[in-house]
């Protein structure tokens, strides 16, 4: 039976980690106590023996292959951020290039929608069109079926009203309708 008060020092003693003072005291005890001495000798023997347990070496070619496999899965891979995201600076021109297609698509869609709106309004009954420098041909069709044909403004009011017509501009319909109604009222002979 080994002595309890010395048991805790055995591992460090066998591994050579015991401080000189404790080592001297333990060795003094081991000289006097045959059971502890035998136990320490057996532990030493067993630990030495365990360190010699052979392991078949797979060979240098395998170690090289292992390194290459690890590197292929780590440092040869592009960085992938798994945690917090990092701010990445991009040059404005590069950023523009990256966004050029979507921006161009938006511009094209805008032009197409403007053209559609324009064609919609130009066929709308409340449009007014510039004929020439001297004459206006303002037409009301559809529900109103009214044409106001004025070659020469006959009065200042007529001239002002004709001048206020917004020509072929989207959104001008309500304004032009009001103008044409006023012109019609000024020209009772028009149909």
């Amino acid at each position: 039976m080994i002595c309890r008060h010395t048991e805790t020092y055995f591992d460090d003693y066998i591994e050579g980690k015991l401080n000189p003072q404790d080592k001297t005291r333990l060795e003094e005890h081991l000289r006097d106590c045959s059971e502890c001495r035998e136990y320490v000798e057996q532990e030493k023997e067993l630990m030495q023996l365990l360190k010699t347990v052979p392991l078949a070496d797979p060979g240098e070619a395998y170690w090289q292959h292992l390194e290459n496999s690890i590197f292929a899965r780590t440092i040869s891979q592009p960085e992938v951020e798994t945690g917090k995201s990092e701010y990445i600076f991009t040059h404005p021109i590069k950023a523009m290039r990256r966004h050029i297609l979507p921006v161009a698509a938006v511009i094209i869609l805008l032009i197409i929608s403007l053209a559609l709106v324009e064609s919609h309004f130009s066929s709308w009954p409340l449009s007014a069109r510039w004929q020439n420098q001297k004459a206006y041909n303002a037409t009301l069709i559809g529900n109103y079926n009214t044409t106001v044909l004025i070659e020469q403004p006959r009065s200042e009011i007529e001239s002002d009203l004709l001048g206020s017509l917004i020509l072929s501009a989207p959104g001008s319909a309500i304004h032009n309708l009001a103008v044409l109604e006023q012109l019609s009222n000024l020209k009772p002979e028009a149909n």
Partner: protein
Amino acid sequence: MNKDLEDLVKDFTKGDHAAFAELVRRYKKKVYSVAYRILKNHLDADDVTQEAFVRIYEKRRELRAVSYFSGFLLRIATNYSIDLVRRRQKRFISVEDETENLPSVQTEMANKIAGPDRDIENRELGDIIDRAIDTLPPRQKLAIILHDVEGYSMTEAAMALDCPEATIRSNLHIARAKLRKWLVKRLK
């Protein structure tokens, strides 16, 4: 590269690829050896070794202290090995608890080592010890493999197995006593 371990690990945590390559070169055999001793299978040991380095590479920013490197690497390797063992439904056979007094193992082993065919005898003895280790319960087996066979410190073994050093010490004592009994019985 002759950098010391502390500098290598510091550089590695900062993302230095050359430092990581050097750490792989220094530790690959140690990790493989631990994995092989637990799994007894080259393909599995290879899998564990690769996985351990890949995982430590991915978690390099989590290495708070340089001294944690080997313990952390060992922990990854042992945990993954244990997972593999569990997944493959391997079972450890416990040593029978023998109560009778047995003669000293010292002389039995000395007799085995001595003699002209020492290398062959040593290999045979190594195989016997290997089988004896295999009979230990998992925690004792891991403590013996890491500390006594592979030579890791108590601190590293404790970190690898995620337990206090006192637990490693106690597992080692119990395991050594069992091994001694088992070996004496077989080497008679």
